[in-house]
């Protein structure tokens, strides 16, 4: 390989999400990140310039880069999550660019569900407003590990440190109370380019990283050995060929933690135990594998294992339950009601379920609760109690995003109704206040 190819290869991948509205300068920030990392190519810029001209706009409207649908361009709004890709020499980025308004909460939740970092934008002139609190709450609810507060339009407040400091302090206190583990506040001007890619010449008082530097260096995965190891079985590989007459492997993507050859494991929900005798990592035999690798496990005993089962360390297996208490974001146009029969999709397992109760609806702007709403409509966040027809090996979402999350699906037409997170809504001090209205404040299997 040439040096160039090697440099290009030696990178990790960061998935992050941005939340904010056009008014906060989100499009300008995204546009600048893409533009300054040379990810917007000549023909794309020309197309945007031409489309902007056709619309009678003088300057190219960078929102047209991501607003890819006819309806979005006609209405001048972002409707759906747009995924953008860019790279620096240090890292590759997948950006889920989501609209900020309350009626698009489901899109923000979608973008945040796979994000390891969320950028929340505020206008330095307005400070922390209702929308900012909602964005912080979504990041906290979805357990996004890193949150960046980008205090934008610093040029319009004379780059004054006290303005930034007071916004950063207020936001950090709020986000920390929701259990957000890491918050980084950065004063920027997306329009002037201050602290986005290049350090600002106007804010000597700020010694931290620029937005891009932070994106390039934030750790992408936490300490996996501290996680509960989880392996949902996707597919049983049984070639039954002359070359591999007896091969039987359990294919899946490690959802959390680390697995080793020789380890004693339980298979859930049956609870049978066995030992890992081999790990095939896409063509190579290995003795250790970790999330999110796709591998095939071989086991010592020929026990009944099929798609939907969960393999976990024998001494650290999750309890199984048919009663699920969770926070859901309702994402469908049709409502979710008490008594409704649904399908619940958890990892690789889909089971019948019934909505036993909707104890409360939550307003993310101020975390106020509205008891017994009866139903949830699009973009509502609520607490639900669900009974499943078969047991699930479900972790609290705060312990494991992958094995603590689920979808509720309409069995009649297949619509994705709600996105669920098992256990308490928020970590930290806010958790008690939020869960207080429930009969059972503690998550208890």
């Amino acid at each position, binding site marked *: 390989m040439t040096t160039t190819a090697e440099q290009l290869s030696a990178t990790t991948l960061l998935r992050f999400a941005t939340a904010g509205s056009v008014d906060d300068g989100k499009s300008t920030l995204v546009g600048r990140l893409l533009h300054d990392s040379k990810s917007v190519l000549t023909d794309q810029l020309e197309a945007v310039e031409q489309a902007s001209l056709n619309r009678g706009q003088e300057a190219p409207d960078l929102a047209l880069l991501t607003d890819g649908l006819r309806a979005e361009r006609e209405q001048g709004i972002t409707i759906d999550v747009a995924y953008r890709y860019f790279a620096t020499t240090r890292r590759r980025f997948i950006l889920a660019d989501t609209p900020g308004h309350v009626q698009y909460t489901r899109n923000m939740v*979608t973008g945040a569900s796979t994000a390891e970092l969320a950028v929340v934008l505020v206008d330095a002139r307005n400070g922390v407003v209702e929308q900012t609190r909602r964005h912080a709450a979504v990041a906290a609810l979805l357990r996004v590990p890193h949150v960046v507060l980008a205090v934008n339009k610093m040029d319009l407040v004379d780059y004054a440190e006290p303005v930034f400091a007071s916004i950063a302090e207020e936001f950090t206190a709020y986000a920390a109370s929701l259990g957000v583990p890491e918050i980084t506040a950065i004063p920027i001007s997306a329009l002037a380019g201050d602290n986005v890619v290049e350090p600002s010449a106007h804010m000597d008082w700020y010694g931290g990283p620029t937005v891009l530097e932070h994106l390039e260096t934030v750790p992408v995965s936490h300490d996996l050995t501290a996680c509960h190891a989880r392996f949902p079985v996707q597919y049983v590989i049984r*070639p039954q*060929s002359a070359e591999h007459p007896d091969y039987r492997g359990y294919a899946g993507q490690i959802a959390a933690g680390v697995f080793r050859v020789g380890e004693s494991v339980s298979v859930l929900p049956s609870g049978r135990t066995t030992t890992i005798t081999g790990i095939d990592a896409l063509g190579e035999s290995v*003795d250790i594998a970790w999330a999110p690798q796709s591998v095939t496990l071989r086991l010592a005993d020929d026990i009944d294992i099929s798609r939907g089962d969960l393999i976990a360390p024998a001494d650290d297996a999750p309890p199984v339950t048919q009663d699920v208490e969770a926070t859901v974001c309702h994402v469908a146009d049709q409502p979710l009601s008490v008594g409704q029969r649904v399908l619940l999709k958890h990892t690789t397992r889909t089971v019948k379920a019934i909505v036993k109760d909707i104890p409360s609806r939550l307003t993310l702007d101020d975390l106020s609760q509205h008891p017994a709403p009866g139903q949830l409509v699009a973009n509502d966040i609520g607490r639900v109690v669900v009974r499943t027809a078969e047991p699930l090996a479900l972790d609290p979402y705060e312990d494991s995003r992958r094995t603590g999350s689920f979808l509720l699906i309409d069995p009649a037409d*297949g619509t994705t109704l709600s996105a669920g997170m098992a256990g308490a809504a928020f970590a930290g001090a806010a958790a008690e206040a939020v869960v207080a209205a429930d009969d059972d404040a503690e998550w208890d299997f």
Partner: protein
Amino acid sequence: MSAVTTTVSEDTANPYALSHLDSLESEAVHIFREVAGEFERPVILFSGGKDSIVMLHLALKAFAPAPVPFTLLHVDTGHNFPEVLDYRDRTVAKHGLRLHVASVQEYIDAGKLRERPDGTRNPLQTVPLTEAIQRHRFDAVFGGGRRDEEKARAKERVFSLRDEFSQWDPRRQRPELWQLYNGRHAPGEHVRVFPISNWTELDVWQYIEREGIELPEIYFAHEREVFNRNGMWLTAGHWGGPKEHEATETRLVRYRTVGDMSCTGAVDSDATTLDAVITEIAASRLTERGATRADDKMSEAAMEDRKREGYF
């Protein structure tokens, strides 16, 4: 034995880091296995282009040492590059796969489709594709589409539900959260699945290099008789080019994308190796579709419109 995945320098403190190619590969393999677990009759759209070649390679890895549990489908426009058809047939034979071919030419010969005045057959693929899906009752159809290719594709889901007419309705897409893909569909409907949604052109090339994947030779620089139409170098050939006023010349070119000969342009290039191709792409200031696809230049929403009608 050792861990297969290379840790990368910047994360030396973390022994469990994955390189970006390993992350993308793992995600794609997960998607293939989800479909194998949940669908009855999946098929991979295989054109012999680099994206479908990478898809097939990922599928082979996902189910090894067992064979790929899917068949392949190629929509043959009748204007395909002979080198690519040759590659397609060699690959099918090598891996013992089953290939279905839907032929645009047969539709034209039978009077079911009409040749367009501009000779472009790309939009004509939709009907043979849709009818092949219905005839074979395919319920999951893998496509090599990538979100970085085009702005309408940037809004596409990994699992994309199509009605019985194969139509895509971007306003009625299911939100896709975590790695939970909802493939529920009614009889007659199907799901288009895009395992390499999150890959960029550069990722595809770097993966081809890492895995040592063979490609049709037209992806590398070679001398070719071409003529200029709408700023693109098109190959002279039986599909109908060049017209009288269009002069041909021999140039050193390669293809960045492979599609219908009538609307896929070659780019000037002296890149004869994978290394050289990767260096060239990393430095390119044009997207692959902007550089090589006449059909996307028709309008701002050309791709969205074709996708709505059931296109790839």
